[in-house]
């Protein structure tokens, strides 16, 4: 069904393309939001990617490859967003909100703050690999296809990103337990 839609859209059928937006828009937005950590910029990136996809679709040789191709356009749009806004980003520390988190919250406010800061320190390339694999669930070979780098580079980027995120949480836990002992 998707392949048929791609073929129709490739021939200029904008209704078919809208259906593709319906099918892939949510996942694309989820990926873009998690790479950029900003809803408005994620919306911009998704729009940018879909409009570029529409314009360039006649050149997509294999309709079966629409999804990885679209993800690549999306990731490139995210890189562009991050670079465009980098100069304006100041080092704002998100202050934790006082009070205990709810019993159902797996991610405590402190953890969220810690992870947000650790993630923002990653390069756009590391963020993309991390999100495509851990959030979108793409196998590493597909991630390599999407971001256009060799599999070895993807593994190395994922290892670095995961290690950085894990280290941030572990360091935070150690501070917590030290404080608990001292209390």
């Amino acid at each position, binding site marked *: 069904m998707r392949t048929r839609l791609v073929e129709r859209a490739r021939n200029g059928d904008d209704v078919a393309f809208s259906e593709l937006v319906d099918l892939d828009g949510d996942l*694309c937005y989820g990926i873009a939001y998690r790479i950029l950590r900003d809803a408005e910029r994620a919306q911009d990136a998704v*729009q940018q990617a879909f409009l570029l996809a529409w314009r360039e679709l*006649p050149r997509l040789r294999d309709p079966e490859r629409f999804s990885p191709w679209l993800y690549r356009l999306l990731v490139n749009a995210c890189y562009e967003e991050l670079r465009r806004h980098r100069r304006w980003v100041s080092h704002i520390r998100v202050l934790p909100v006082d009070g205990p988190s709810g019993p159902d919250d797996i991610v405590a406010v402190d953890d969220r703050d810690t992870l947000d800061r650790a993630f923002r320190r990653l390069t756009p390339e590391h963020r993309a690999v991390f999100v495509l694999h851990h*959030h979108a669930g793409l196998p590493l070979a597909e991630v390599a296809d999407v971001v*256009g780098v060799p599999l070895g580079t993807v593994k190395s980027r994922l290892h670095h990103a995961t290690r950085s995120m894990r280290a941030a*949480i572990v360091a935070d836990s150690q501070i917590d337990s030290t404080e608990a002992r001292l209390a």
Partner: protein
Amino acid sequence: MTTPRDPETIIAAWLDEGPTELPEPNRRAIATATRTITQRRRGFDSPWRDPFMNGFTRIALTAAALVVAAVGGIYLLSPGQPSGGVGGPGASPTPSPTPTPTLRPSPVATEAGTITLTDEGCTWIGNPSPITQPVLLTIDVVNETDTFASFDLHRLTAGTWDDAVAWIRAEHEALQTGGENPLGPADFAEQITDEVDAVAFAQSRLTQVVQIPGTYGIICSSNEPPPGAVFGIYLVGPLVIE
């Protein structure tokens, strides 16, 4: 007492947080825009005849045309002036007040073909016959990949053409197996042009006055926008300038 916490669980939960649905206004905006944006045609035509040329390409080609016109004018007006190339310090738009007894020939504008970068490699379609200097080289460059691309004219300063080809191939293979700029910059060649860049699916033009005889090649690379990582690197040529 604190409970041991599993970082993986916390990271996974953190990653799951956040919006999951593309807002309706964005869907509508995309649908509206697709009705007004013309799709590209399949394949590439001569860029100056492409009615669907994007703004970037149009600006790049206009700039290239202006450079060609300016360089041509400079050489026509000051045939005795040595020049370092486009915008070089030796170029002057005013005629030399002291005519020199021997006039340096004006560079002959030469279309040196088209270089096309794809996901599979880089190809040059052009006439491989030696070109007599001084020459105003123009080469169309086409980026058929969906990443950023750069094209640079280099002149060999050491070794043979085959050495250069082997070095670039080794660099490319190293990139494919996980390295990032593994071999570093080439030490056998001098970069002649500043990078001529083309965004994804775009075309541009490399324009350069060449006055030094030698063997030249164009290094094409697909990469993230500078100074990002390089995905693939290729060498096409040789262009022999006599």
